């Protein structure tokens, strides 16, 4: 019997290794896998490259990893927040590297990583600083930029309901990067609000088919 359920956040992230590249779902606090991130902070593993839309706010989530100096590089679209945060401190002191990526280019690069596409051409960023170092090519009389896929060692994703095969649904705008990130990592770990018996999720409503998911941990909190 296939059972992708793991009993604790700590076990589920125990094999994250120094220098690993990690995709983290979420937009603001919606869809952030706080349980998995806290477990990862507790391991102390460092040198991580984190790919996520934001750098977090306050002291939890990605901020905890950054405060602990576990993150060497952040690939991100919007690392600014209303709270003064740890990312700002680490960035201004020069101890964390930042690759700033337009948000749709970020999500599409991850989508490409999961979908077997090496690179693709978009108009986003043409004629701006985001074109620096990228190939520009003309199609249909316009310039387009070549953008490269992002793949990762791990994805940490927050979902709503999951079954033992890893099928998952999401809640409202907490869906955001989750369904895309689970496809682009070697090991995809889902933090679920609820585990339901196999067959409970309507096959038409499953957003993430279990094929993309390796581990499911229910958020007991």
């Amino acid at each position: 019997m296939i059972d992708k359920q793991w009993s604790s956040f700590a076990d589920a992230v125990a094999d994250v290794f120094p220098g690993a590249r990690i995709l983290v779902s979420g937009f603001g606090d919606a869809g952030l896998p706080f349980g998995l991130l806290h477990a990862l902070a507790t391991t102390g593993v460092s040198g991580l490259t984190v790919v996520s839309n934001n750098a977090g706010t306050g002291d939890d989530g990605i901020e905890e990893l950054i405060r602990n100096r576990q993150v060497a590089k952040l690939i991100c679209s919007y690392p600014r927040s209303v709270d003064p945060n740890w990312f700002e401190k680490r960035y201004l002191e020069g101890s964390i590297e930042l690759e700033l990526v337009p948000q749709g280019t970020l999500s599409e690069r991850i989508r490409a990583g999961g979908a077997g596409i090496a690179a693709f051409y978009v108009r986003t960023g043409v004629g701006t600083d985001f074109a620096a170092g990228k190939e520009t090519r003309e199609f249909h009389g316009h310039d387009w930029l070549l953008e490269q896929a992002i793949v990762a060692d791990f994805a940490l994703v927050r979902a709503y309901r999951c079954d033992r095969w890893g099928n998952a649904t999401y809640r409202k705008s907490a869906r955001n990067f989750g369904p895309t990130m689970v496809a682009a990592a070697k090991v995809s770990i889902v933090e679920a609000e609820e585990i339901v018996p196999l067959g409970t999720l309507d096959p038409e409503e499953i957003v993430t088919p279990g094929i993309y998911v390796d581990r499911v941990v229910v958020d007991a909190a």
Partner: protein
Amino acid sequence: MLPENVSIAPAGVAEPLGWSPLQIAIRAYEDLAEGQYVNLGIGLPTMILAAAQRGSKEVIFHSENGILGLRDIHGEGERDPDLIDAGKNPVALVAGGSFFSHAESFAMIRGGHLDVAVLGAYEVTVAGHLANWSSEQARPSGIAPTSVPAVGGAVDLAANARSVFVLMKNVERGDGLRLTSESALPLTGRRCVTRVYANLGVFRPTGSAFLVEELADGVTRDYLVARFAANRVLVEFAN
């Protein structure tokens, strides 16, 4: 020439002249047509949701984080932390709204499916260039940064939406202007701004000037001409 009886207050000190932020949002909302799909960026643009509450048009608002059909929550009971706009503020959903992934949301944006993107700005130039993601000019390499850059979805929207409306709380910045001939700031997009809705009125970048389509209440043509001339920014008037 500046009329002598007008004081130019430093930005952030006095209230901006002309329209209030809500009035700016209401004015921009007037130019949205029923059936349009309209992305709302962070900050002032989300105030269009408040303007829409007073309207009866079916305009469908898009938020980059995977929502079509968001609406103002205006003090309704429970706020759902999983239902937020691009600025991470709680919103509600209209009947007919839908949720989707970021990848889908930006496929929508890049594919040219948004009729209008409404964005904030640091500066807009006469050519329609938009600078809204970094207030820091390019640094010589080797110089440490003094602020955190953040771009979000603005570059995607500027490059791909069918039209871009910029909402600007205060055109004036001390003696300077945020409507400029050239911008030294890092650009969000080139030749992308359709129209600027600002405290002083409604402006259309023509390539070489700002065409004033409407003056805000309490803003005179003379004042505007003088203010722009002092900054060597061309203005034209529709009538």
